[in-house]
């Protein structure tokens, strides 16, 4: 993949700078001003958390789908909503169709009928048991994504980094879950997968799973400390608190990896974990139902 990423559609067409993302979104909002004003929505990342949870629920119904298929589906959804206003769509249908496509691309195909039935069972008010609807949404998504469906994920890069960084099992697991979380931010639209993987590996070593206490959600404060150790190690080489962290920093210094990108990724993640504390599933659900119902998007 390392070879093919450079010419990939992901790099050429689906990687944006932060200002570019802001510009695209404000242009979209501008053109859809009335619906945007009529139906306020939670912060984008909170919606992403909600969408991720819905995809996971559907994935579970489909027999514990591979994480990579769910990650691919999330990327499709993120890309799709860069050019299509969310309030013009039925998000539940979009999530289901994105997962349907992702399953085919990630070689764990599911029959359309099963996806439709399970989606209908999960969201009976929003998704009708109608294959044609899902198939139509599939067309819409693929057309909007210009059939560019191959997604390069950081998971593979992480696997390649594991021996280089001498990651222990818990560290790899932690890095893996950081990668899972990065799909909730704009990072997959901004950085190459190996930058994300390096960031995740780095943070995993700095955070040390045993010290971060309870498994599961990573604390913003812990990450902020991690960021400090990154920048410290950079500014005063040789005096880092953790020799392994120092070793990674040295490795990064010798590689052509841009440290600023790692720092930026870390900051995005810190900010995500801060926002996460405000997450409320019900708010997301209700605000989505409002526009889906009143605009009859479920029909």
């Amino acid at each position: 993949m390392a070879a093919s990423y450079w010419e990939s559609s992901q790099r050429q067409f689906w990687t944006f700078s932060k200002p570019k993302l802001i510009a695209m979104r404000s242009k979209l909002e501008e053109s859809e001003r009335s619906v945007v004003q009529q139906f306020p929505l939670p912060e984008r990342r909170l919606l992403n958390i909600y969408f991720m949870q819905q995809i996971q629920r559907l994935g579970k119904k489909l027999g514990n789908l591979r994480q990579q298929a769910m990650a691919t589906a999330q990327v499709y959804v993120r890309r799709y909503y860069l050019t299509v206003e969310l309030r013009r769509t039925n998000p539940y249908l979009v999530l289901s169709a994105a997962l349907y496509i992702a399953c085919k691309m990630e070689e764990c195909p599911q029959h359309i009928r099963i996806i439709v039935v399970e989606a209908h069972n999960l969201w009976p008010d929003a998704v009708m048991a109608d294959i044609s609807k899902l198939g139509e949404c599939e067309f819409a998504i693929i057309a909007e994504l210009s059939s560019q469906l191959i997604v390069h994920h950081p998971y593979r890069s992480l696997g390649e980094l594991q021996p280089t960084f001498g990651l222990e099992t818990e560290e790899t697991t932690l890095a893996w879950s950081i990668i899972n979380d990065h799909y909730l931010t704009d990072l997959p639209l901004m950085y190459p997968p190996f930058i994300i993987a390096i960031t995740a590996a780095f943070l995993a070593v700095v955070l040390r799973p045993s010290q971060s206490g309870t498994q599961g959600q990573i604390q913003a404060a812990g990450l902020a400390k991690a960021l400090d150790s990154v920048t410290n190690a950079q500014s005063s080489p040789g005096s880092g608190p953790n020799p392994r962290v120092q070793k990674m920093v040295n490795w990064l210094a010798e590689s052509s990896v841009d440290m600023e990108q790692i720092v930026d990724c870390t900051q995005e993640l810190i900010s995500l974990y801060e926002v996460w504390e405000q997450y409320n599933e019900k708010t997301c659900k209700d605000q989505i139902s409002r526009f889906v119902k009143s605009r009859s998007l479920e029909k």
Partner: protein
Amino acid sequence: MAGGYTSKKRVYDRYRIIGFISSGTYGRVYKAVGRNGQVGEFAIKKFKPDKEGEVQYTGISQSAIREMALCSELSHPNIVHTVEIILEDKCIFIVFEYAEHDLLQIIHHHTQSNRFAIPAPSIKSILYQLLQGLLYLHRNWVMHRDLKPANIMVTSAGEVKIGDLGLARLVYKPISSLFSGDKVVVTIWYRAPELLLGSKHYTPAVDLWAVGCIFAELLSLRPIFKGEEAKMDSKKLPPFQRNQMQKIIEIMGIPNKEKWPLLSSMPEYAQLGALAANNPRLNKPFGLANWYNQTIANNKYPPNQPGAAPGSEGLNLLQGLLEYDPEKRLNAEQALKHPYFTQGDKPTENCFEGVQTEYPHRRVSNEDNDIRTSSLPGTKRSGLPDDSLIGRPAKRLKEG
């Protein structure tokens, strides 16, 4: 979705269909010319909906999705260029650049009444271009899995382009599904021995075996291993392709553990012993060198003119491609560095350079010009749409 899906691009606004080229289980291919600013000739592959005259969306088959994704990802002078993909009226149209010829057609032309060999420089050029396209695919972790003369296009300018990524797969995707999903891969005559022996963990080396078979076919004008396909049994398990394996052994000899260490771990390894026990002829193989020398003589390649015959380097390259052990088989990069290409005359960019032969144009029929309303041949499907593709008998019009 409110209002439903309507395509922003319309096939008829951009292309005028001139005629029908071929059909297969996936749908049909049409020849078209551009209109309204679109310039040139095109081949448009239309994927048919699962059922004839479908008025509802039924979901896109996995193989169509794969092909669409790969076509929009890959770009190389020796891969058929994808101009655009249009999703319109419940159909998918992949618009390709047009190529006047393909290798099957070219080989066929040489077997006509006054049978004559394909000039050695043409073969060298074709092979070189084919390997460059393949190197690009493999560097991008794509296995083609269905290389055969009919899938290799040649433009009027003599550029060779690999086409039909309908069975192509990314190498690093889960291996378990590679075999179970598609059941059978690669047209049987070009199928690598590790596939015939039931390997589930195969690699891009399968494509290089196919290149070896194509090289041999360009030299002799007929498939080198022309086996008869064993049909799927009632349990829908892929059968052991006994006859195909036999054809290979008749020339190449029986593979053994000394030359191919992992041979005994192949699922169908036991079949090999049974095959040899019942057929004493297989213990006295013809030998690839004999086959080669005889072919060169039969097709009257001049023996003493360097460049006018493929020579001993040609044989050596062929041996490297038709190597039993996939780990020892030449990869695309090694093949391109082979003395066959690097010594003597360099491969020409135009495979028709210096060639007097006028190859017939691709036959395009006018029977079915309506890309949107034409009725399509029905095919049986079961299970997951299209993933049960068996063999895929690509019907194509016979030339001339």
